């Protein structure tokens, strides 16, 4: 199917972009980073086209539905969202160094997707609902924001160590200052948090409409709550003496690990209602 070919092309572009951003850091060459940005833009166009094409192809098959309903589709959608959110941040903050820490997340996600079944399957009855769209899209924008935040938090921890030792050298020396990084970790989370909250709420509303229970402590629900709690802790840590800075950055990374567990781990390791990873 042609959508898969486009997704494979996007995977290559994500890889090239990651390489360019990393290369730009090592070579200390802004021109390479600019090439990275344009590769990201191209990847955005290709992956958006791929998603649209996949949506269209599902209609051609007579089972038309939004392409976010199994593991393969959710992975490519996640990578798509990370890439777009990253471009948004890069433009807003005018620094290309973040790319080296964020784009590899999108690239590895796509590589993982390639190893999964990419066929278009019809929707099982439980997924036939308009809530699907609102639920999945809000959740994934949240996840993408958290991915970017965690990438920046890693940069923060590296930079903070150098600033504490009052040295500035190597690749880390080129990173933006701690204050900027700390601010960006926070700014990406305040985008992600309302989206995650909305994602959990739309999920609850959907569950209530499908089963008559808005919360049943199934593993997926519980893990989404865990993610929410970690970021809630982060938001409070930032305004508390002794907790901002390093501890807040660690909470951001822990939050993203919890997100990965919620998104993939629950399906691959635990059992529950969100069965797309089981098959």
């Amino acid at each position: 199917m042609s959508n898969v070919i486009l997704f494979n092309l996007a995977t290559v572009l994500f890889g090239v972009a990651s390489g360019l951003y990393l290369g730009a850091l090592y070579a200390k060459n802004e021109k390479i980073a600019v090439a990275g940005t344009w590769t990201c833009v191209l990847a955005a166009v290709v992956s958006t086209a791929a998603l649209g094409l996949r949506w269209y192809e599902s209609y051609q098959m007579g089972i038309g539905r939004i392409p976010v309903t199994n593991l393969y589709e959710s992975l490519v959608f996640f990578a798509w969202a990370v890439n777009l959110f990253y471009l948004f941040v890069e433009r807003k903050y005018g620094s290309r160094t973040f790319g080296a820490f964020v784009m590899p997340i999108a690239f590895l996600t796509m590589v993982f997707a390639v190893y999964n079944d990419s066929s278009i399957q019809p929707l099982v009855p439980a997924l036939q609902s308009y809530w699907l769209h609102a639920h999945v899209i809000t959740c994934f924008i949240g996840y993408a924001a958290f991915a970017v935040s965690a990438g920046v938090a890693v940069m923060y921890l590296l930079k903070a160590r150098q600033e504490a030792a009052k040295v500035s050298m190597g690749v880390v020396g080129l990173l933006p200052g701690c204050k900027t990084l700390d601010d960006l970790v926070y700014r990406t989370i305040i985008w992600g948090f309302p989206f995650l909250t909305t994602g959990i709420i739309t999920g609850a509303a959907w569950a209530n409409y499908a089963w008559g229970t808005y919360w049943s402590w199934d593993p997926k629900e519980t893990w989404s709550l865990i993610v929410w709690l970690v970021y809630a802790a982060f938001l409070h840590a930032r305004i508390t003496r002794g907790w901002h800075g390093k501890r807040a950055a660690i909470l951001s990374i822990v939050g993203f690990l919890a997100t990965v567990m919620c998104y993939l781990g629950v399906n691959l390791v635990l059992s529950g209602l969100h069965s797309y990873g089981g098959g």
Partner: protein
Amino acid sequence: MVDEKRTLPPMDRVWNFFTSVKLAIITLIVLASTSILGTIIEQNQPPEKYHQIYEDWAFALLDRVNLFDMYHSTWFLLLLVLFTVNLSCCTIERFPKMLKIVRNPRTKLDENLEKTLSFSDRWKKKGALSDWTAKYAGAVSSSFAKPKVTEEGGAVHLYAEAGVASRFGVYVTHLSIVIIFIGAIVGNVFGFKGYVNIPEGEAVSQVPVRGGSRMQDLGFSVRCNAFSLETYPSGQPKAYKSDLSVIEGGREVARKTIVVNDPLQHNGIWFYQSSYGQSGGATAKVTVTRKDGTPMGTLSLAANESVPIAGYGTLRGVDYNQNFGGNGPALQVVVEKPGQPSASFWLFQGRPDLDRQRADSLVFSFGGLSSKMFTGLQVAKDPGVNIVWLGCALMVIGLLMAFFLSHQRVWVRLSPGTDGRVEVVLAASASRNRLAFEKKFEKILTGVKAAGQ
């Protein structure tokens, strides 16, 4: 510092404990980490299943600390109570202070306030103080917000603010959590959840409540007229459909075919498509006609049940094959006539006339197996659910207010200078996102200065 803390009266120490943000962080982290346990240990399984997985001592230990139903255990509920108390105390402590600041803003820019503001600029102008006051008030109005004018000791202070709602965001969010908990409690106390199987053609007026032996009276009855299962060409399930009727006082008052994600609601009680199955054994449909073609009717044969045919004998279905000898579904029947040896033969669904070859007085044709189905419905009444949705809506609104609004304040002070000119100070502050406010401040500054040209 430590000594000072020790000398506080006990009540104050308790209060300080419950109003601290550190407690909030720790409670959030403890809630998050303990919640993991219930996703690793499968919840609410029968004891036999746990015994298969765990050694006796491990089972006893996990059972003792309620880890098999941890989200409803006392200790977990206590954690949630601590969380709520902390949240409420923080609000009680901080909200009145915030309200005071919002209600009685510092409208005068004195020296002390000026020092704390990160955005400020000053200049001098020739002319009358009252003229400049009018010009600058107009400029602040057009570039930011309408200022309040206060005069004190010969100086004039202008004060304008925007985005005050930002200060309320955190309280709206905290309140929303309490509202959601209230909704959950209302639902638990005044609602119920149950599950019921209804065979096709039958009705129920009571449902067993989940997690108990109680039966819940519905106040009406629900009949399942029919259940059907649709599949995609690939064989995957496409839709589970139950045709339901609501019967009140012997009269059908509502009817709806429900599917997953499209429930039926009556008097606040919801019915959700949840499961299905075969109700009792299958029956075989056999159409009987005379040799001359006169129809005699259709029989429904349960497995191995002898059905009498007046003036003929009995007919009994003994076996069924989905694809007998490559000829499709077939039913094996036994005919017993009085005083004659019994005869056994196959009827093919795809060839209804084949039985004529037997040259008997009656011709049988097999119309297929039909099985009576039952539909499995989740039944729920939750009078708290709308309170929960209200809380959810408030939460999103509160978060957006807290994150994306900023309380911005602008002051202008005009005072007579020693050299006869008017001394002007313009200062501003923003409660969040100072980076973005920097640009706005430049704009206001340019606007105000331009008013003097």
